[in-house]
């Protein structure tokens, strides 16, 4: 079966995120004073073959651990797994 797996990768909380800080400041200068914090990460849409949704999720987790996210500085969330 074919699945589309969505992954969010974000800088780990507590680690200085200059990109997120610059975007936060830009939003403040536009008048969105209510914005407390912004973090800029990456979104990956992975189309892959697997026997089940769980197997697709497990495979993408392994891909994140091995390559897609840096275990020292980033966290990842598998946001969705859809059969396509």
């Amino acid at each position, binding site marked *: 079966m074919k699945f589309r797996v969505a992954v969010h990768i974000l*800088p780990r909380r507590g*680690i*200085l995120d*200059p*990109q997120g800080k610059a975007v936060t400041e830009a939003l403040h200068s536009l008048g969105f004073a209510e914005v407390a914090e912004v973090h800029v990460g990456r979104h990956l849409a992975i189309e892959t073959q697997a026997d089940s949704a769980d197997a697709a999720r497990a495979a993408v987790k392994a891909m994140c651990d091995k*390559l*897609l996210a*840096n275990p*020292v*500085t980033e966290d990842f969330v598998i946001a969705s797994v859809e059969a396509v």
Partner: protein
Amino acid sequence: MKVGIIRFPGSNCDEDAWFAIVNDLREQAVMLWHKDTDLQGSDVVILPGGFSYGDYLRAGAIARFSPIMQQVATHAARGGVVIGICNGFQIACEAHLLPGALLRNDVGYRAMPVTIRVERTDSPLTAAATVGQCLTMPIAHGEGRYTASEDDLDRLEQAGQVLFRYVDSAGTPTTQSNPNGSMRNIAGICNANRNVVGLMPHPERAMEPLLGSSDGRVLFESLLATVNA
């Protein structure tokens, strides 16, 4: 001394490293393609600066899986000397040859001369230098902010693995003299076995007065002294 310089798609300081070894140091160098599977008897491996694989995903993340990197890891595990400069430092961290990570600078891309202070001389890249010696050489990077957990940083400091720090003209590590926001002003480190070294500044671009500084020479002379010891 025979130095193997690994050329990845996107490397751009490979020729500078070759020139430093062959023309300035009068030693042997060999260019190794990232798809090679043999280090051709190199005593030292240099992972040069550049933008390997376009810095896609994260700087150094994809270069780590090049076929030659298996040989580099084996060479390092046997105690062989590996030097990662700039993008090479990023690759060495991504390959887990060195601890920590290099994140986007706190102030964007920087290309400028910096001053670094030698913290230790018990490494292949600093053996001929002196502790506290200040060296001026260029940096040119967008992702050089050395980052690790506070615990890991404490362990690195205690083990004497911090080899270089960004300092001001008086030799003091200050916020002002830190070009990228690196934690504890760290510019270069080594692994626990002290045979793998990574640094963001470019000693290979500071080999003769014509280039604005010849302070990089002492680091290459250190390599030579280590290999010949």
